[in-house]
């Protein structure tokens, strides 16, 4: 008799726990999985946690579960998740991920949400263009960055070189600065992320306007000229970089050692120079014949097809919250350049990022790399061929022609 009564009690407790457990998932609270690579070292994770707490207070039925992964792991986890179906509800990742993840058929078209357009109007148009594929937007901008010309003030003063005002002056300054252990210019890679600004600022293009052809664009006379300039600099020892020459010093180490005098780079360069006590300053890339056009970087918020309706809506609420002025200003204080238009001119944000006006100016004309699924492979080909051209392993026109042929083979298929 006793055992029977005990069993009934146990079963009842079991049933109640089950029911309440089920009730939690259906209709009550929705837990959304958020993958990100906000840097803990810069205090960004702390700000994220505070923002999540605020969001959860304002939305009592949503719980946000953040998961940190570094850049490489973030990308690989989604690649893995595409096969297994284990994907987050919302992710903040590199803008270059958008076409890659879309080619894996995982992304949700955020423009399907009714209030997408209203939210997109609150952010910068150029950075948000990195989400546009076809006629749909597969994400919304989270934060942005671009590259500006950093220069070592100590080295420039020592060599009596004035701050360049045109792209040609940048190259002549690099030549003059190179002497002894000092190298005038460093480029860590040779993809469009690196040489794109020089090409675009001289009026060149990488692909045709509809991103279907490379022949006639990547191997045009303008691009040949630009790469030849870089090749001459490299031959004179005024340009160095670890991808062209594995024996060269990395850019961060080189800046700290006072080896490199100038570099086109993003906000992280300022942070590392501060840490290394380098006297530096920065200006937007001096204009070439077609203007000053730098390259867009940054991160976007993305959502995934594997989420059900409740999770999609909850994640969208979170994304909207993170792109509003308040969240953007808070993130700006820890080094995340805002995309929200109001946040860009906010006094607190400006106080936290002294170079923000320089970046903001460069952002007005910065260009996103082509948003196509094959872009990663295309940029890899360009990086290889441009490196061959710059180091003199191949003639510039030949290398670029080969690049055009290989790229067209990928885009055509």
């Amino acid at each position, binding site marked *: 008799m006793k055992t029977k009564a005990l069993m009934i009690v146990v079963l009842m407790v079991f049933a109640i726990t089950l029911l309440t457990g089920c009730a939690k998932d259906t209709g009550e609270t929705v837990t959304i999985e958020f993958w990100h690579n906000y840097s803990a070292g810069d205090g960004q994770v702390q700000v994220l946690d505070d923002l999540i707490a605020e969001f959860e207070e304002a939305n009592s039925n949503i719980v946000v579960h953040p998961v940190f992964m570094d850049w490489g792991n973030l990308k690989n986890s989604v*690649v893995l998740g595409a*096969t297994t*179906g284990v994907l987050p509800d919302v992710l903040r990742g590199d803008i270059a991920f958008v076409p890659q993840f879309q080619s*894996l058929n*995982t992304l949700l078209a955020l423009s399907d949400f009714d209030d997408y357009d209203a939210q997109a109007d609150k952010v910068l148009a150029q950075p948000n263009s990195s989400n546009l594929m076809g006629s749909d937007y597969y994400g919304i901008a989270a934060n942005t960055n671009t590259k500006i010309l950093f220069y070592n003030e100590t080295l420039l003063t020592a060599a009596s070189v004035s701050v360049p005002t045109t792209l040609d002056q940048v190259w002549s300054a690099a030549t003059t600065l190179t002497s002894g252990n000092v190298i005038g210019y460093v480029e860590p890679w040779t993809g469009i992320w690196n040489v794109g600004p020089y090409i675009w600022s001289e009026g060149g293009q990488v692909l045709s306007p509809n991103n279907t052809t490379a022949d006639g664009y990547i191997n045009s006379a303008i691009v040949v000229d630009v790469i030849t300039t870089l090749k001459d600099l490299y031959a004179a020892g005024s340009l160095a970089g*670890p*991808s*062209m020459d594995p*024996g060269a010093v990395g850019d961060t180490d080189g800046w700290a050692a006072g080896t490199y005098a100038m570099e086109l780079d993003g906000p992280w360069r300022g942070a590392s120079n501060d840490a290394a006590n380098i006297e530096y300053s920065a200006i937007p890339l001096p204009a070439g014949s077609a203007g000053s056009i730098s390259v867009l970087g940054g991160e976007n918020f993305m959502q995934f097809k594997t989420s059900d309706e409740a999770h999609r809506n909850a994640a969208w609420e979170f994304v909207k919250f993170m792109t509003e002025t308040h969240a953007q200003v808070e993130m700006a204080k820890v080094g995340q350049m805002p995309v929200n238009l109001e946040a860009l001119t906010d006094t607190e944000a400006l106080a936290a990022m002294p170079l923000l006006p320089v970046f903001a100016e460069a952002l007005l004309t910065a260009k996103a790399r082509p948003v196509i699924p094959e872009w990663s492979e295309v940029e890899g080909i360009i990086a290889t061929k441009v490196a061959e051209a710059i180091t003199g392993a191949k003639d510039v026109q030949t290398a670029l022609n080969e690049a055009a042929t290989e790229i067209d083979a990928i885009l055509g298929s």
Partner: protein
Amino acid sequence: MKRTSLTMKKYIKSFDWRILVIFVPGLIFVSMFTFYPMAKMIIMSFFDWQIGYQQTSPFIGFDNYITVINDPTAKIAIVNTLVYVLVTVPFQMIIGLLVAVLINGITKRSVLYRVSYYLPVITSWVIVALLFRYIFSNYGLLNYFITDTLHIVNEPIGWLSTRWSALFAAMLLGVWKGIGWNMIIFLAALQAVSKDQYEAADMDGANRTQKFFHITVPGIKGTIVFALIMLTIGGFNTYTPIAVLTGGNPFHQTEVVLTWMYFQTFDALNMGYSAALSVIIALIIMLITIVMFKLTRFGGDSK
């Protein structure tokens, strides 16, 4: 010998089924983590393998293999790997054997020598590769010595900047790291060579070199073959030294098969291509191993 059904029943009865209890878990583990992935990968190599969400992979037969064979970078990777193996394996073994013979001959402080030679073996690949990178870089230790200290040249030499000199640095690293492993293996094998043969040779008036080539080497022949095969397979699996020293740069000139495979799998997401390349490399290794076996058998089952 024919078994009758009666003998069969006896066999089953006397068979110790407890062996299976020990044997089966390991077999399951190996099947899951080695046989299944291998089989799946061979199948993958015949498809244009897509890994996207709910995407299908079309069957393309031998197309991946044709792509690999026609790919100039794959050729560079295979050539680099073959050169790496052909240089590091013999040098490791020869120096390892010499060191083992020398250490075998001393009585005092042999432990000190054995530890010093074995330390590189147990040090992490990443650490030593980074060390070599800093030594060979344009502003590294080696260039500092030859320009600032010894004044042999005026400008630093780009050791890692071109294909063959970078491979040279990688091969130096590979040999240096492997000497200790060979030394330990050969030291153990040398213990098994009977002292009587050396005494007999002494009585016949043989000198050190003759004793080495006619007694020592044949005596440890089995170990030599074992080391040869293990090191060759290991050589084909080189990844870390190249990845850390050059990353395959400049422009994929220093790729070895594993770094190129990694690039194709994780950066370019060409799964079918990497699978085909994997299979091709496996076949090459198999061929080399078979040839080695045949050669050493014919080399003389000498007394």
